[in-house]
C-alpha cells in the first residue's frame, strides 16, 4: 500500500501541491489580519480570547483544505476515469480496491495533515505576533491550549472524512468540476449552520458528515471488481 501511495505521488507530482498549501496558509494569515483590522475600525475587539481566536483560525482553515481535497479527488480519481488511464491502471496485476484505497488514503490524509499542520503553524504565528503586539486581551492558558488542540484534531479527522463526500458528485457523471463545486457548497453550508448553534450540532454534524463521506467512498468502489471499464 505504501508503494502504491508513493507511486501515485510520483505520478501526479503531488509534492508540487505543497506550494499551493503554502500559498493557502499565507492567504489565511492575511485574512486573519483583515478580520482584525476590520473589527478594529468598527471599534470591536476581533479576538476576545484565545479560544475564540483558535476557533476562527480553524473555521477558516478547514473549508480551505476540504476544497483543496476536492481538487485532489478530481485529479487522482475523476481525471483518471475521464482520460481513461484507469483502464491502464486496471490492467496491472494489482487489486483494484487497493489502487482506489491508496488514492482515497492520499486525499484523506492530505486533508487531515494540512489542517493539523496549518492550524499549528498559523496558531503559533498568531501567538508569536500577539506576544509582541498584545491584541488579544486574555492570555493563553494551558487549558485553553489543550482543549483547542483536542478539538482541532477531532475536527481535522472529521474533515478528512467529509472531504470524501465530493467524490460522490464527481463519480456520478465523471465530472472534474462537480467535486470542487460540491465541496464549496458543502463547506459554505456547514459554516453557516455552525455559527452560534449549540455544541451538540457543532460536533454531531461534522462527525455525521465524516461518516457519510466514508460510506460514499466505500459504496463508490465496493463493486469495482465487477464493473466494466469502457
Amino acid at each position, binding site marked *: 500500500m505504501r508503494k502504491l501511495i508513493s507511486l501515485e505521488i510520483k505520478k501526479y507530482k503531488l509534492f508540487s501541491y505543497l506550494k499551493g498549501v503554502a500559498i493557502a496558509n499565507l492567504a489565511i494569515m492575511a485574512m486573519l489580519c483583515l478580520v482584525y483590522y476590520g473589527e478594529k475600525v468598527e471599534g470591536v475587539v476581533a479576538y476576545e480570547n484565545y479560544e475564540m481566536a483558535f476557533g476562527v483560525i480553524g473555521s477558516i482553515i478547514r473549508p480551505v483544505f476540504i476544497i483543496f481535497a476536492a481538487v485532489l479527488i478530481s485529479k487522482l480519481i475523476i481525471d483518471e476515469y475521464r482520460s481513461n488511464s484507469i483502464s491502464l491502471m486496471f*490492467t496491472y*496485476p494489482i487489486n483494484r480496491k487497493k489502487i482506489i484505497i491508496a488514492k482515497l488514503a492520499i486525499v484523506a490524509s492530505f486533508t487531515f495533515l494540512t489542517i493539523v499542520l496549518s492550524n499549528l503553524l498559523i496558531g503559533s504565528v498568531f501567538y508569536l505576533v500577539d506576544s509582541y503586539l498584545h491584541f488579544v486581551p486574555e492570555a493563553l492558558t494551558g487549558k485553553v491550549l489543550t482543549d483547542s488542540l483536542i478539538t482541532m484534531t477531532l475536527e481535522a479527522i472529521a474533515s478528512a472524512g467529509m472531504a470524501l463526500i465530493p467524490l460522490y458528485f464527481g463519480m456520478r457523471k465523471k465530472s472534474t468540476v462537480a467535486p470542487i463545486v460540491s465541496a464549496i457548497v458543502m463547506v459554505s453550508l456547514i459554516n453557516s449552520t455552525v455559527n452560534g448553534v449549540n455544541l451538540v450540532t457543532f460536533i454531531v454534524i461534522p462527525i455525521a458528515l465524516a461518516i457519510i463521506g466514508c460510506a460514499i467512498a466505500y459504496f463508490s468502489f465496493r463493486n469495482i471488481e465487477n464493473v466494466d471499464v469502457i
Partner: protein
Amino acid sequence: MSYIIQTNQLTKSYKGKEVVSNVNMKVKKGEIYGFLGPNGAGKTTVMRMLTNLVKPTSGEIEIFGEKLTNTSYEILKRMGSIIEYPVFYDKLTARENLELHCEYMGYYDKKAIDQALDLVKLKNIENKSVKEFSLGMKQRLGIARAIITKPELLILDEPINGLDPVGIKELRDLFHMLSREYGITMLISTHILGEMEQIADTIGVISDGKLIKEVSMNEIREQNTEYIELAVSDMNKAVYVLEDILRITNYKVIDETRMRIYDSRVTQGEISKTFIMNGVMIEEINKKNHSLEDYFLTLINGGGISA
C-alpha cells in the same frame, strides 16, 4: 496442442443487445493470431474481456490454462496490452511513463526501458512530455510499454494505427522478432488486411459479434489463391470453349461478361489463344491473387446472409 487463450461461448451484452455472441476462440502458444473484423464487430470488446476490463455476460475465458475471474490479478502480470489507443500520463515524459509501468507491473530490470524504446525505434524523446507526441509516436510508445516486461501474451488492438508505411514495416519486423525470438504469443487486431496476411499465423474473423471463421494462414494459402479473370464478349460460347475444348471445370461465372478460371494447369496464353481461335473476343484478361481481402469479404458477406 496447448492454448494460451481459449474462450467458451463468450458473450457480452450491453443493455440487452449482444455485441459479442458465443465466441469460441483458440489462440495457440507462440503464434500470431490476427483478429479481423469490420468496425464495431466486437474485436475491442473481446480484447477488453481478455484483459479483464470488461466482464463477460456469459461464457468463460481461459488464459494460460487458468479461468479468468474478477480477481485474476496474477494472470495480468504475464500479459501486455494496448486496447483501442494507448493512454499515458500526458504530463510525464515517455521514460517516466515506462518507469511507472514497470513499478506497477512489479518489473525491475533497469535496462528494459532503453531496450524497449530501442525496439520501437523511439528516439530524441528525452525531456519531452507525452502530450507533445504525435499519434504515431504514442502508438510506438504504447507498444514499447506493452513489450517492456517481455510478457508471454501480447494483446494489441489496432497497433499500426497512425503509423506511416515505414513504421508499419518496422513494427511488422518487430512482431516477427518478438514471436520468433521470445516466443511471445500475440493477438493482434487490425482492419488492414494486407498487414495481417504478412504477419499472422492464424486468422480469426469476427462479424456482428460472432466469430465466423478461425483458420490458419497456411490453409488459406492452400485454397485456390490464384485465378485468371476474363471479360469476354459472349459468355455462352466462352463456357462451351472452356468445358469442351480446354476441358476446364474449375471456373466461375461472375456476371454476363466476367468469369474466373481457377485451374492452374492452363496458362493465360493458352486460354486467350483458344478463345480467339473459337471466335470468343477477350476484352480483358488478368491474372489475380485471391487475397485475404477477398477471402475476408466473402466471409463477412456470407456471414451476414446466414445470420
